[in-house]
């Protein structure tokens, strides 16, 4: 067990290194930031001095080493726009993003799995067909389109929900205040629709396959009640592989906060990255990519380890 965890840990570290390299390589190739950093009337002399001061005149390898040691110290440079350390800005915005992603994930799981089970038990019933049609629509609707339609209906036409901002924040989340909840509703729905539909469909397919297995029939032949067979025997087999999917999908959710936050002017990292890309604020982009990558790698690691505890077949 320990060996396996260490192995995964090593693998995760390796992936993180690769990512840091790719991110650095992209920035290296993206060209010289100095001209952006200096005022327009700077002389050629200023440019050369600035480049030397930032170490940009050194070779790729040397610069990469410098970059890594900076990362280790948590120093990713100051934002060109905000003038503060880039990492601080990203961390400051992170709770708002995580709040959206976590709540959307919870909503998707709590609705997606039960609806998936219902539609798998009697796949040809009218209820199942309705659920399946909506789930098809769910995976077909682009995130930004859902967000827009919600804004149009609830903000522009009905005027009942606020179209932007995070509302009143208590502790670390807006989920604890009425004003905050009102601000959360539309972004969370926007973010959840696709995930919900996906989890629903995966649950349904998994359940349908499992319910055809011999061991389900044998459980019936043993006289185990149908409810127990569906909600325990079959569900357990279906949910185990779903854990991996949910882990990966959480990463998707975090990524799609970029779209949601842009539409709802949500003050999280997603809005930050789009603004920073437009403003060519390179330190923020680098900090964002590294932090988000770390989150993804960490989730993958946790899911891998969790899986071995939950699935008896891979228990080491």
């Amino acid at each position, binding site marked *: 067990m320990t060996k396996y965890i260490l192995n995964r840990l090593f693998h995760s570290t390796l992936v993180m290194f690769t990512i840091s390299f790719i991110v650095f390589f992209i920035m290296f190739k993206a060209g010289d930031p100095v001209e952006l950093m200096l005022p327009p009337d700077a002389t050629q002399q200023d440019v050369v001095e600035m480049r030397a001061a930032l170490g940009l005149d050194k070779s790729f390898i040397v610069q990469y080493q410098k970059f890594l040691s900076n990362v280790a110290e948590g120093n990713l440079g100051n934002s060109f726009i905000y003038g503060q350390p880039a990492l601080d800005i990203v961390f400051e915005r992170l709770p708002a993003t995580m709040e959206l992603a976590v709540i959307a994930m919870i909503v998707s799981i709590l609705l997606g799995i039960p609806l998936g089970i219902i539609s798998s038990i009697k796949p040809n019933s009218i209820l199942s067909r309705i659920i399946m049609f909506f789930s098809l629509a769910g995976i077909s609707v682009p995130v930004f389109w859902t967000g827009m339609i919600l804004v149009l209906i609830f903000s522009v036409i009905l005027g009942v929900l606020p179209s932007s901002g995070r509302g009143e924040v208590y502790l670390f989340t807006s989920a604890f205040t009425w004003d905050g909840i009102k601000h959360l509703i539309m972004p969370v729905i926007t973010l959840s629709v696709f995930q919900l539909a996906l989890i629903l469909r995966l649950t349904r397919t998994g359940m349908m396959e499992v319910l055809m297995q011999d*061991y389900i029939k044998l459980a019936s032949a043993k006289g185990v009640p149908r409810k127990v067979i569906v909600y325990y025997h079959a569900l*357990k087999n279906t949910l185990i592989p779903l854990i991996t999917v949910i882990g990966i999908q959480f990463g998707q959710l975090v990524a799609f906060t970029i779209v949601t936050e842009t539409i709802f002017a949500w003050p999280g990292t997603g809005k930050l990255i789009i603004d920073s890309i437009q403003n060519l604020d390179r330190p923020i982009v680098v900090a964002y990519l590294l932090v988000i990558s770390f989150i993804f790698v960490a989730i993958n690691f946790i899911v891998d380890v969790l899986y071995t505890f939950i699935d008896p077949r891979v228990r080491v």
Partner: protein
Amino acid sequence: MALLEVNNLKTHFFTRNGVVKSVDGISFSIEKGEILGIVGESGAGKSITGFSMLGLIDSPGKIVEGEILFDGVDLAQKSEEYLQKIRGNEIAMIFQDPQTSLNPVISIGEQLMEAILYHNKKASKKEAYKASVDILKLVGLPAAEKRMSSYPHQLSGGMKQRIVIAMALLNNPKLLIADEPTTALDVTIQAQILYLMKKLSKDFESSLILITHDIAVVSQLCDKIAVMYAGRIVEYGKKEDIIFNPKHPYTKGLIECLPKLDDNKERLYQIPGIMPSLLGLPKGCYFKDRCEYADGECDVYPPEQEIDGRRIFCHKAK
């Protein structure tokens, strides 16, 4: 009164391509402690017959006609709730492939114990545990206590089949249905499992329905034999009569097919052709296209006859 009496049972599947009459009007009965063998090729409707006894026919299949009198009660008319109390309790079943018969993510112990706990609400977990360990010992599983916490993937096929058998015997059923219980096992283990089942059904005073394609197995274990072909029983009677004096050309063929050690024939006998698709059955006797005795008379499905103490459906049998 017979323990189980099946009368004119019909189980049909309503598929897109037409009605598949997997079981089409079969009748047989089994006394207490008796062993009945149901023999036939795959697709003859043997397994569906077994599942019909327990009401385990999945959509689009349905029992459309007939009686399944178990202790005088017609199971074909009973509700799902009633059948659930019968299943695994009074009638238990053993499946063909032990590799797929056990739930891969639930421990062996739990799978055994639930068979007791859902039928005997008064039993405590402790009692169920003890009973499960005892039965594992009885089927000859080594290190029974340790196996309780094992998962299926940790065991061999033979061990799993012993567990499946143990599971079926837990509640001391009156009737045991074994669907090709040894087909998926190594030859060396097959005999062990078969004799274990015979011994246990005698010890437990259970009746046994043994479903198999292997007439050799039937000839060793059974008291009675029903030969099925394309959803119908073609010959049914006492083992001695059927094995030593088969009357139906199909039964004769099956027995001819068996290799004999004292026989130096170069090739084994084969029944020519294959069983017709259940969606494209010929008019008249279903076997006529493969039968060397068939003539114009066989264009009508043969009526039931009693010949030499057996029930038979053949115009040519005397």
